[in-house]
């Protein structure tokens, strides 16, 4: 138990901050994922074949390639890409991108591909009559989307988005390869310096279980809230 003490003697406080870091990266990644979904879901549903093709390539490639490979691409390629853009503006010094941003972006792109599929499925399963009724009521495009379609989409999407959240949360453990100190990285450091990997990795597993358990409870509440009236 003294291994988990707070302060200089134990790893309790380090692991606590690492857990907060995991939560922060997961939420940031999920938000970036929503942004991607916001861009690619309309492209997927559009009548234009070219736009369709772009959105389909995005979801197919990301969902068919291992997360770790995507993270390596961003980890090794991110700096180069940013420096290339900076060099266009005449800045030639070495730029190092923060591990948090690289990690959240890489996981965000992955999570975005899954979210896109969820939103596409949800919108497609909304009854056609709802769209027609909105038209008949004379709502404009924004009113139609925000007042009629979005609330119903959310209700249908939340159970599946909760799966995406679980995947995203677990994927953040892979960012540890880039050196960002989240649960996995902190356990690795602690295991290395105390020579007690069994304890620290098992404790990491418990922390992840706790995170998934608590978030499931919270999402269930949200689900109840959005299915009022059904």
């Amino acid at each position, binding site marked *: 138990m003294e291994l988990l003490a707070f302060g200089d003697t134990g790893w309790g406080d380090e692991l606590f901050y690492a857990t907060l870091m995991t939560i922060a990266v997961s939420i940031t990644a999920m938000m970036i994922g929503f942004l991607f979904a916001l861009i690619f879901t309309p492209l997927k549903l559009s009548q234009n074949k070219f736009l369709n093709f772009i959105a389909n390539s995005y979801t*197919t*490639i990301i969902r*068919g*390639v*291992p*997360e*770790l*490979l995507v993270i*390596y*691409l961003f980890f*090794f*390629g991110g700096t*180069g890409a940013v420096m290339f853009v900076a060099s266009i503006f005449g800045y030639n010094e070495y730029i190092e991108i923060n591990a948090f941003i690289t990690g959240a972006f890489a996981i965000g792109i992955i999570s975005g591909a899954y979210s896109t599929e969820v939103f596409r499925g949800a919108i497609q399963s909304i009854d056609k009559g709802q769209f027609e009724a909105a038209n008949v009521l004379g709502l404009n495009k924004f009113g139609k989307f925000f007042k009629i379609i979005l609330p119903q989409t959310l209700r249908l999407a939340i159970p599946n988005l909760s799966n995406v959240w*679980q995947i995203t949360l*677990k*994927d953040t*453990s*892979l960012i*540890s*390869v880039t050196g960002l100190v989240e649960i*996995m990285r902190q*356990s*690795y450091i602690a*295991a290395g310096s105390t*020579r*007690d*990997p*069994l304890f620290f*990795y*098992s404790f*990491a*597993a418990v922390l*992840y*279980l706790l995170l*998934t*358990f608590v978030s499931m409870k919270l999402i269930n509440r949200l689900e109840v809230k959005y299915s009022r009236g059904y």
Partner: protein
Amino acid sequence: MDLELMISSFPKLINAAVITLKLLSVSLIIGLFIGLFFAILRLNKNIFINKFAYGYSYVFRGTPLLVQIFIIYFGLGQIEYLRSTVLWVILKEPYWCAIIAFALNTGAYTSEILRSAFQTIKRGILEAGKSLGISNKVIFYKIQIPIAIRQSLPAYGNEIILMMKGTSLASTVTLMDLTGVAKYIISTTFKPIEVFIVAGGIYLFMTFMIHNVIKFLEKKYSFN
């Protein structure tokens, strides 16, 4: 774009893809048995057996695969007792540690898939079997299992693809699978995009093949 690098790294990555496929197939086969075993436990009426099977799938689905690999590869070696048993022959090899972790992980997901397949079998089919005087054992092996396999094919296909992506984590315990070799080439040449295109292309090709095989099987075993 460094086309030369893409061409020269292609054979190395293909060789590495063979290791990925080996890891995948061995862990899927072991995982299928684990999954079937736990799915049957889940259907058991005894609450302790039932909870035990549920706990297994909950823990393995609720924690990242990376943690599971690290516990097995780094953690188990710490137990002195294990080092003196025959098991150590297996557990000191990163290859087998990775396979054990993958098999246990996919076993947890497979057990959920099979459980829901068993539960959706229509009662009438089982009753028909009983009224024909077929024994419970034969009903289980000849009626329930084939129907459950057919029901679970689409979900299991997804699981195979997820597991194929999961095998990339073998590279974190020194195995040179497709991702491991890709990372090695990237870190020696600093050409991430080129290597990503080739390695990602190979992964996509494998995903595509798995997808088509499952689709073919679905068609072949469809009820109509």
